[in-house]
């Protein structure tokens, strides 16, 4: 794979993910990113996000299987596909991807090798409230199936 890969996340997707995490402040949450891959431009467009689960359901298979089936069906009809995964941990200062998140991320990367794994950054979220610092509250996790592919990302408004 040559060249840098860029990721653009639409406002709808971004806000949905953050709101989902804010609704369940006391547990881990996860979600799926859907969008398009433009190989010509080297751009992954994340146009929408589907919040999935919170707390225990994250690590249980039945709901995940049904969810993935339905997401593929619903968004397939709009010409969109699975392009990534979002995870927010339970604890404030935890930015590691635990095994469950890695397994789900691996599964998605096998399906779409350029998948982005986004992790919620609580420090930036806190900064949003206090200092009006507008840096994005998600970061692309350093964990990836193919390290050299995940480089920069930008939040589009």
């Amino acid at each position, binding site marked *: 794979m040559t060249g840098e890969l860029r990721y653009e996340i639409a406002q709808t997707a971004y806000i949905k993910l953050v709101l989902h995490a804010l609704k369940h402040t*006391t547990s*881990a949450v996860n979600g799926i990113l859907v969008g398009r891959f433009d190989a010509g431009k080297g751009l992954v467009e994340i146009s929408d996000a589907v919040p999935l689960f919170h*707390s*225990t*359901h*994250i*690590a*249980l*298979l*039945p*709901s995940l*299987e*049904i969810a993935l*089936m*339905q997401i593929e*069906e*619903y968004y397939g009809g709009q010409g969109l596909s699975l392009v990534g995964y979002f995870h927010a941990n339970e*604890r404030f200062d*935890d930015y590691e991807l*635990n*095994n*469950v998140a890695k*397994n789900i991320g691996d599964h998605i990367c096998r399906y779409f090798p350029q998948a982005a794994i986004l992790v919620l950054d609580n420090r930036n979220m806190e900064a949003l409230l206090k200092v009006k610092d507008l840096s994005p509250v998600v970061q692309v996790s350093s964990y990836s199936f193919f390290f050299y592919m995940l480089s920069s990302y930008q939040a589009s408004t």
Partner: protein
Amino acid sequence: MVTKTEEAELNRLESQVEHGGGGAWEYLCLIRKLKIRRSDKVLKHGLSILNDPKKRSSLGDEEWTLYEQVAVAAMDCHSLGVAQDCIKVLSKKFPDSKRVGRLEAMLLEAKGCFEEAENAYLSLLEDNPLDQVIHKRRVAIAKAQGDILKAIEWLDKYLEIFMADHDAWRELAEIYISLQMYKQAAFCYEELILAQPTFPLYHLAYADVLYTLGGLENLQTAKKYYASTIDLTGGKNTRALYGICLCTYAIAQLAKGRNKEDKESGELQSLAAAALEKEYKSRAPSKLPLLNSTLKNLRL
């Protein structure tokens, strides 16, 4: 865990209070009774009672219980100043109280001073070695620091003494699931089902864990527990209905090479599928095509 009626009553009271219709005290009492975690609301409405001297005096002796409830809610919302004030009031009224001592240690926890909190709890335990809340707070400290294995160890020790604490078994199961230790989680749910066999959510969670573990035997048992969930909830549990369809499909995939061992399972799946369709038609008709395509993927 609360029943649907209890939750409905709680939500009704909550919207009444939120829209200025009064009933804050009843709302707070119900939250205390059901042990639900809605700390931002508790903080808001609890403070409105406590800051109003007339309302406060009308509570009589219950005033102190409210101070305790608001202190815990404040800590949960990270309003440590409010929590500190409430605890100060309580310690003035009840000096040398173990209950207040516990709150003070919780405040240390909330501030992130885990070592000091741990020492405070240890010294409280010396006088009162069978205090359940303190034992559980120690588990919470381990969890908050990210030391999950220590949390499991402490929770295990706790459950050896207090075997009937269902919430602790559930917490342990959830920790095991987050670590993908599904066999151990299954054991916890087995204990819960033994203790409360008519509580459908334990059957459902157990079935989910068994399905995740996989393997023919586990899938067959999972199917039985999804069926018992449907039985206990009068057929209203969507996840259990989906579970039946998933299990039947997975069992069929596994048993493909074998000789027609489970031919009777087809009927249960079609019944579940029919029930799902009926539910979607009445509650979410726009999503019916999605359901139909999912079911098509799962049909044999």
